[in-house]
């Protein structure tokens, strides 16, 4: 049995919650009362302990119930196959570049239909099959308890020694992480809905107020540290309050972000400042997506001038290969690339000292990126990458500090924004 659920997959998460709140809470209340299933009431009861409005609670309960049902469907199919004495299997959609398509009209990465069948009675897959079942069981437990765990926590929850042997169920967190992502795609439920989150990374500050699990957070008064962007940024957890900002400036890492924060850039330019510590985690990407989609804020990126910086931009804009199934709720196709650009060396009259020579790996990666279909039809990008390769060096955002400590906040970014000088 292919584990494509019968109902529409995970729409709940990507829909704007504000429009539907009233209707949903009514529904949820009804289902709560009508439900005779012990489990359903339990799910609802536990989720009620969490913060947020009644509508949020109901919303969460509905999503949780759906997730549990999908996990149970997976278990039931395995049981049914076993009792029929046929090889039990689970179909897992393939998560690699071969199964990723670039949707030109939406300008998004989308996952294809290719699937891998995971069977128990295959030496190479037996262990993974068992792990899939263990993680499924663990996630169901978690959702029912209405609690969340980190990826590492999930690893420990499913870790034990197989009775009668010295073998452990998982040899490391790497194994459980991969199996969890497999489970996500196999039952078409998001990690957030499985109540598992990654290590939190990324910071935000700016002219906006948010409600994180019911707590009001004024991002204008975050001091030097900023608001740590949570790992789960779903509307049921994180809500937007008053927002005067006109755009979002996303920078690559916290060092640059600190510079902007200290110079009160968000105040003078009326914007939101975010940072993703390198490749932004899911939480940051989801937040950027929502800021763009729900509040209509344009996203500008200030990243290093090297293949890795370019790929960060690509992930923010089109989605990543590994998580292509989530592009619809993560990607910001309108995101713009402000800099650093390869011609900044001349334009800003930088010294020779900022040049970092490109190594073979960099060159290879740059060519790979240039060949991705979502870059291939972008004339400016082709020119930009070509220019970088012919320069033979890369530059970090910090290189602008050689001009002046606040050159980047007072001159570089304002000039670019004013001139609408960016690459798309």
């Amino acid at each position: 049995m292919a584990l494509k659920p019968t109902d529409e997959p995970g729409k709940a998460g990507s829909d704007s919650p504000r429009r539907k709140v009233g209707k949903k809470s009514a529904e949820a209340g009804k289902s709560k009362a009508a439900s005779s299933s012990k489990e359903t009431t339990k799910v609802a009861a536990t989720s009620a302990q969490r913060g947020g409005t009644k509508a949020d609670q109901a919303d969460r309960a509905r999503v949780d119930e759906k997730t549990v049902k999908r996990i149970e469907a997976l278990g039931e199919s395995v049981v049914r196959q076993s009792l029929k004495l046929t090889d039990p299997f689970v179909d897992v959609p393939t998560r690699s570049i071969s199964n990723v398509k670039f949707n030109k009209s939406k300008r998004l990465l989308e996952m294809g239909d290719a699937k891998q069948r995971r069977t128990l009675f295959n030496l190479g897959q037996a262990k993974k099959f068992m792990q899939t079942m263990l993680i499924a069981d663990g996630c169901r437990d978690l959702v029912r308890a209405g609690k969340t765990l980190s990826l590492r926590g999930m690893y420990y929850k499913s870790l034990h020694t197989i009775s009668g042997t010295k073998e452990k169920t998982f040899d490391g967190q790497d194994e459980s992480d991969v199996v969890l992502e497999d489970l996500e795609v196999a039952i078409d439920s998001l990690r957030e809905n499985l109540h598992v989150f990654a290590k939190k990374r990324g910071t935000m500050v700016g002219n906006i107020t948010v409600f994180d699990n019911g707590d009001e957070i004024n991002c204008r008064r975050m001091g030097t540290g900023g608001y740590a962007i949570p790992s789960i940024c779903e509307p049921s957890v994180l809500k937007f309050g008053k927002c005067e900002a006109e755009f979002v400036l996303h920078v690559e890492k916290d060092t640059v972000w600190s510079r902007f924060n200290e110079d009160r850039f968000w105040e003078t330019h009326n914007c939101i400042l975010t940072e993703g510590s390198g490749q932004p985690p899911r939480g940051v990407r989801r937040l950027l997506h929502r800021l763009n989609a729900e509040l209509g804020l344009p996203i500008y990126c200030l990243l290093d001038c090297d293949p890795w910086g370019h790929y960060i931009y690509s992930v923010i804009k089109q989605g990543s290969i590994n998580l292509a199934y989530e592009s619809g709720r993560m990607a910001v196709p309108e995101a713009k690339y402000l800099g650093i650009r390869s011609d900044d060396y001349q334009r800003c009259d930088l010294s020779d000292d900022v040049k970092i020579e490109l190594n073979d790996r960099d060159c290879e990666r740059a060519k790979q990126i240039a060949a991705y279909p979502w870059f291939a039809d972008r004339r400016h990008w082709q020119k930009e990458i070509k220019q970088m390769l012919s320069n033979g060096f890369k530059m970090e955002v910090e290189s602008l500090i050689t001009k002046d400590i606040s050159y980047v906040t007072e001159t570089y970014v304002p000039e670019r924004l004013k001139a609408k000088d960016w690459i798309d």
Partner: protein
Amino acid sequence: MPSTVTPPTSPKKSSGKTGRRATAEEMASKQREISVSEFFAKNRHLLGFDNPRKALLTTVKEAVDNALDACEEGGILPDIAVELLQLAETRFKVTIRDNGPGIVRKQIENIFGKLLYGSKFHRMKMSRGQQGIGISAAGMYGLMTTGRPVLIISKTGRGKPSHEVLLKIDTARNRAEVISETEHLEDDVLFAEGHGTSVTIELEGRYQKGRASVDEYLEQTAIANPHARFTYVTPSNETIEYPRAVDELPPEAKEIKPHPKGIELGTLIQMLERTEKTQLGAFFKEDFCRVGPRIAKEICGHADLTDRTWIKQVGHAEAEALYQGIQAAKIMAPPTDCLVPIGTKAMLAGLLKEVKAEFFAASSRPAAVYRGNPFQIEVGIAFGGNLPGDELGRVIRFANRVPLLYQQSACCSFKAVIEAGWRNYGLQQARGSLPSGPVVIMIHMASTWVPFTSESKEAIADYDEIRKEMRLALQECGRKLGTYLRRRQKMRRESERRNVFARYIGEISMACERITGADAASIRDALESIASRKTAEADQQLDDEGRVIDNGGRLAGDDSVIIIDAAADTPEAVAEAEQIAESLFAAPPMKTRGKIIKKSAQKTGKKTVKKKRTKTTGKSG
């Protein structure tokens, strides 16, 4: 080799300005003959006495080799006792006693006191010793390092007196000096069988266990000589017994005449000078093997001589022409029945006794010829069991049943092992090195003349013919090992498969129960029945292919292979295995080839050996 060595005349240095320093007459007064004993006393490293550790081993080795040769020639199953008595940190008293035919009184001085005196140098016969240097050199080394003479006790039979002689070697004259001698008329407790010889040498040495130790030498000697019994008393006064595995002596080696293709011009001239024949035809026919009237004529004709030419008339030029004639003539290879290989069965018995492994195979090549000398290569392999798996394999080398412990990498056999291509046979092998894994490779070369690289007999010279034969024998054994390893791997994979499924089924059924509420036990039963169906299919395939599982497959019919199943450990299995072992050990090694020995208990070798060994020290190295 002549019995004296002329020293290289010292170069007469004339230092120009100051004129002559010595006259020819003055110098002549200093020039004199050097005795062979003196030469080797100064150059003792040539004979294997480089350092105290090696000296101890060489002494034991020379005495044991002589004892084995003597017993076999006398038709007696060897029973040899080796005793190392440590007197001080670097001083040992070495005693080797055999049950051989004994030595008559008047030969004692010559055999033990004179270098290059022996029965084996002048004949073409397969034996351990060759030059007649060994034991007297050991005595000489002992005398030089400790000043103590050699003690020999020998008895030639019941009713005959036993002689106890103390000998000192006079190196200047290359002869022995008797210090004292006594004659005992009564039976000697030393020689239970009424005959035998005992040698005691006191020397400076160093005892160390491990590679190239006395222990290793004796262990390997026991492998190559399963018909001999050794009793070894170590310096720490432990007694180790190496029991006899085969109760029959190897057949006696036949002596052959030299083959014309095997000699050099100088040897030919020397033979012409020494022969008792008067005419060329008779000389070729009688003094060489494989030469008949037709070939004798052909050789003589090539030199424009006839078979009736008088030998007196053959000068240097004629000899050279005759030599060319020999090279041009087509002559049959020398007879090979003069060789006595160990035999696959006896090799297996020897390996089984001393090496704790799970798989044994042996193969024997037909005899071949290098430089006119017949030779034969045999190879044995032991694999798995208790052998260390994470090291390079071990090569044990033998020449005429004598272990070679030094200079492994200079030896022809070592090179042959490296080039045999072990990866084809399921072993790992880095380029240019030995195969790695739990493997012991035994190579034996039997020949009327083993070409050693030096007098200390440590490595076999690298002749193409020898290396090729070695490689072929190794590959033949390797194929058997490869068959076994592939089969073992296949069976392992199958059982692993079964284990993997069995291991995970429990976890899966419990997870399913938790997720769906279905009964875990019924899911487990269902999955287990699928699993057994799946693995039964696999078993079926195996059976169809080669009936591997039940009867050992292709290897079962091969009587040069022994496989020990480590699983069976019941008392009955042990008893049965001991019986098989007994029948193997008692089986005549060469004549009637008994049926395959497929044994079902690991304990076979161990149990029997343990019983007989008073103390087991385990493998050395």
